């Protein structure tokens, strides 16, 4: 979280600051500021403000007192705010659900630790911890476990990977960066030495791998991708395809990123999507139901007609 802006945030921060410092006598102000994610100047202002607050009477023995020793601070009188405020409903929900997610994530390798942490947080949150949220993230836990262990080993990996976009299986050497779950799927993010770029590899498409002796060494330009909007983000330079789809194939628009959906008067939708590869589009479209028709680009339409004709010819020719 960035520096709190609203008034409630500042009050919350101040009420939290006293017990925080109380638990860490003599902490460096710079260290506390970094830990609390505020500037050092802001923290000093907060301390000055607390200094004039205290118990009714507001005399020397009543006010919050602290020893400022150069760059260090020690609270010597807390005026009764010796504990942080209870978790709010939203705080309890955010922590409990995230921990449940973590506990359910296959391959984390420390499920018991997460479960223990969860139990303690639930206990501290009291009634609020009873979040009506259940989580299940099924995946091939065994494979994910192997990949994670390999990544933690800190070595480069040689792997056999299936690329659905080009329908090919290739060997490549990668420098692993992290393993993550996005939308119920596990990915290995790594620097691919073949592509000389950072890539997201779906764990279920890593058909085999071996750990190399050399260490994983992603180059400095290998930056983790922001996946908050999903893993596949079509870019504007990719070609568009246009489909006419019937009612029963509208699910396509929920499943694949689409650029535009235009309902037509007949109840059919005209849908445009970006495609990385014509072959991929062909395999997808020829496998879809009878109410999906390609209307562009011309080369895709041509390709589909050609491929379907050639495929059918195999079954009519007596040679086979």
């Amino acid at each position, binding site marked *: 979280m960035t520096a709190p802006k609203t008034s409630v945030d500042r009050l919350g921060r101040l009420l939290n600051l006293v017990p925080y410092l109380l638990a860490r006598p003599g902490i460096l102000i710079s260290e506390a500021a970094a830990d609390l994610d505020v500037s050092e100047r802001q923290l000093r202002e907060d301390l000055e403000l607390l200094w004039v607050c205290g118990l009714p009477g507001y005399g020397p023995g009543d006010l919050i007192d602290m020893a400022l020793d150069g760059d260090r601070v020690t609270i010597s009188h807390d005026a009764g705010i010796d504990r942080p405020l209870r978790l709010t409903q939203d705080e309890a929900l955010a922590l409990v659900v995230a921990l449940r997610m973590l506990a359910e994530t296959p391959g984390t390798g420390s499920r018991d630790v997460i479960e223990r942490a969860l139990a303690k947080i639930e206990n501290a949150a009291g009634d609020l911890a009873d979040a009506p949220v259940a989580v299940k993230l099924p995946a091939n836990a065994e494979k994910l476990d192997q990949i994670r262990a390999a990544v933690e080993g800190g070595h480069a990996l040689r792997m056999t990977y299936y690329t659905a976009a080009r329908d090919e299986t290739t060997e490549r050497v990668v420098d692993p960066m992290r393993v993550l779950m996005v939308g119920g799927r596990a990915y290995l993010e790594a620097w691919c030495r073949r592509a000389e770029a950072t890539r997201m590899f779906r764990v279920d498409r890593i058909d085999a791998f071996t750990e190399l002796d050399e260490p994983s060494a992603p180059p400095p330009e290998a930056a983790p991708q922001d996946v908050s909007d999903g893993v596949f983000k079509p870019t504007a330079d990719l070609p568009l395809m246009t489909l006419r789809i019937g009612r029963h194939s509208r699910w396509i628009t929920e499943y694949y990123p689409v650029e535009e959906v235009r309902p037509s008067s007949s109840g059919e939708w005209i849908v445009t999507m970006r495609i990385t590869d014509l072959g991929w589009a062909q395999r997808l479209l020829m496998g879809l139901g009878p109410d999906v028709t390609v209307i562009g680009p011309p080369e895709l339409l041509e390709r589909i007609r050609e491929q379907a004709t050639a495929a059918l010819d*195999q079954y009519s020719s007596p040679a086979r």
Partner: protein
Amino acid sequence: MSRTRTERLVNLVICLLSTRRFLTAAQIAATVPGYEHDPEDPRDHEAFQRKFERDKAELRELGVPLETGTASVFDQEPGYRIAHREYALPDIILEPDEAAAVGIAARLWQHAGLAAAASSGLAKLRAAGVEVDPQATLGVEPVVTVDPAFGPLTSAARDRRAVTFSYRVPEVDEPATRRLEPWGVVCWRGRWYVVGHDRDRNATRCFRLSRIVGSARPVGRPGAFVPPAKVDLISHVAGFDGPVQRTGRATVVARHGRAAGLRRWAVSTQPDPDGDKLTLPYGDAERLGATLAGYGPDVYVEGPPEVRDAVIQHLKEVMARHEGVVAA
């Protein structure tokens, strides 16, 4: 907030925490700096009352448990106090690895509101003396995103309050208004669902949060229903798709170097004059037929007839629907 206002509020919290007696507004005004006013002057007094109301609202917004009561049965005017045991976070002792797990969990949220809630929650744990290693990782980290309806639905489920929302199913043109008694929210295979009793259908229903248009609105009073005891939310959502049994075996010839996607799940591969003969396990002939059709002339189905026929039928349909199409 001005410095004086913050100062006044901190002093108010300290004052109310330190008292066992309920303090009336007048007593508070006489004690806490910043509330000085002339109670005899109606305008001044009214200004004080407004200020005090705002301050109380602010404390409640922050989650400060402000208690209201009277000091004795003879008192008419309500007083205020804060019970320390209600205010304070209970003792929590986390081992370093447990604290690291909480720290990681708090970072998972991609949703701004929940991310802020997670980090302010974590700040409280730190204030309770928990040391969190910001560098810790767990090997595999889930990226947690939620749909806008997540917050309102979890609140409603907790409060046992009915909700109404506009729900759009792709096959249907217009979104429909649904009324639900939400039992809980489920994350299944990376998607969020709400499970509950559908008041219009009078039955248990699941809804995908991504199909809710806008958000969900609570209707009626809290405590309006009781969810079934020990309800297994996951089972209601997971019941949609059971495991697929792949007992069928199809024989398919894949051209040399082609159809890599099929080769990956072949249970056996034999050399063949035209390529490789693959044995593919399958459950549903139609589904396999559709997949195989996608590979065009790169594959040739030898059998069984149900798969072969499905492929031929599928390809004929592809031909038929693209006949006469003029590229846009």
